[in-house]
């Protein structure tokens, strides 16, 4: 806490991330979700429940909007006066966007949510006091609060069901906020393994649970810094840049013919998830 420490490291503590920072090194976890491939089947969401010990809250609490699905699949259709939604629906898997300049991080009174070195928006459960300010300030509303003590709830986790819980993931008690972690337990394991072998995590070495389950491989996940990663290539091909709130491709006069975008980009939260627009045939 000493002032000398403050003065010595002045330049460092005045660094703004990511605006005037060097890129994450060696990791920056990111995602790309192809909405044209997503069929809305919910496999990702259930995989997430299985991997991350997410409580099933039951009908009554769901009715009160207290569901905990870290990954929710949203469904939209056009309402333009046509009798039928004859171009189908649009599905959108929505989870924590792991923003680079996350609105939730700044507002937590106890610093329970922070930015990690590999570009995740971390949530420290045992530091959380449950002020819910982070969720209040989340534009995507992807943070979920433990309104009840689910681990001790007989309907949620009867003794038998508790044996299914993933020991790598903490069980959250009442009063703490939680959200998608990009399966940080898997990332940590892979990073530790790679570190032991003196390398960085290779492309494809680690998958998130949702990515792994997705029957259409709509989700790709990886290290954005690694030029060999599929995510890096996808982001590059779609000309979406992490620390931009307006993509250069959209400024050009000609339409870009690219379909990569980030949701609510204009809020400058710099999400780490790029979506690829759903495509619909114009010939029928």
């Amino acid at each position, binding site marked *: *806490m*000493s*002032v000398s*420490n*403050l003065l010595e*490291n002045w330049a*460092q*503590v*005045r*660094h*703004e*991330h*990511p*605006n005037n920072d060097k890129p994450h090194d060696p990791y920056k976890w990111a995602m790309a979700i192809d909405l044209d491939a997503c069929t809305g089947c919910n496999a990702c969401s259930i995989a997430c429940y299985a991997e991350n010990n997410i409580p099933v809250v039951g009908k009554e609490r769901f009715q009160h909007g207290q569901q905990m699905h870290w990954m929710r699949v949203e469904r939209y259709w056009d309402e333009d006066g046509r009798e039928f939604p004859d171009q189908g629906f649009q599905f959108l898997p929505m989870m924590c966007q792991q*923003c*680079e*300049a*996350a609105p939730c*991080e*700044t507002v937590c009174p106890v*610093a329970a949510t*922070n*930015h*990690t070195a590999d570009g995740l*928006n971390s949530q420290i459960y045992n530091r959380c006091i449950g002020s819910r300010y982070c969720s209040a300030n989340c534009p995507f509303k992807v943070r979920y609060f433990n309104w009840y003590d689910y681990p001790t709830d007989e309907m949620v986790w009867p003794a038998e069901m508790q044996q299914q819980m993933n020991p790598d993931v903490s069980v959250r008690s009442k009063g703490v906020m939680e959200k998608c972690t990009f399966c940080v337990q898997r990332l940590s394991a892979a990073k530790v393994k790679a570190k032991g072998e003196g390398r960085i995590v290779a492309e494809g070495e680690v998958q998130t649970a949702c990515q792994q389950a997705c029957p259409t491989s709509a989700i790709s996940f990886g290290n954005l810094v690694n030029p060999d990663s599929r995510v890096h290539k996808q982001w590059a091909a779609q000309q979406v840049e992490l620390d931009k709130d307006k993509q250069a491709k959209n400024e050009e006069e000609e339409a870009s013919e690219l379909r990569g975008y980030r949701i609510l980009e204009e809020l*400058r*939260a*710099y999400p780490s998830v790029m979506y690829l627009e759903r495509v619909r045939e114009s010939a029928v």
Partner: protein
Amino acid sequence: MSKRHLLALYGNFEEAEAVVQELRNATIKGFDVNDDMIVKSPIEHPEVERFLGDKPVYVQWFTLVGALLGGILGFSLISGAQANFYMQLKGGKPIVPFPPNFVLTYEMFILGGVFITILGFLICAGLPAKRSPLYSTKVSVDNIAILVEADESAISELKAIFTKHKALEIQEEAGK
């Protein structure tokens, strides 16, 4: 030489003022009007200062010191803590950001100011104080009291002055 206290009560301010004027003009041995006289009043009379002479108040210096200290300490404590706590990295913000620290500094500035002012008040006003040897609860109603401390020799003279101005009551400290 032993000193004794004398307390005189007056019903209104003009009378008290007249007494003070007289005490001021009279030269009584063993009694210094500036050091040995205390005027007690039920309300704050700004006029008292006029006839007691210009007595300085130092509370505001405490205020200045307190506010500055609060502000500086506040800022360095907060920034120092932030600089030491790298876990606190917030996306889009530096580790030691100015706008929030300014707000907190501002609050600390006021907090320091208020606390030290109160401290200053207690010191300057000599509170908490031992009760003076002579006191009348009538002061807390509507009387003005003049408490003097003087040598044994001056007591009678002072008493005479008080009586002359029709003191409602005169209390005398028992001799030692």
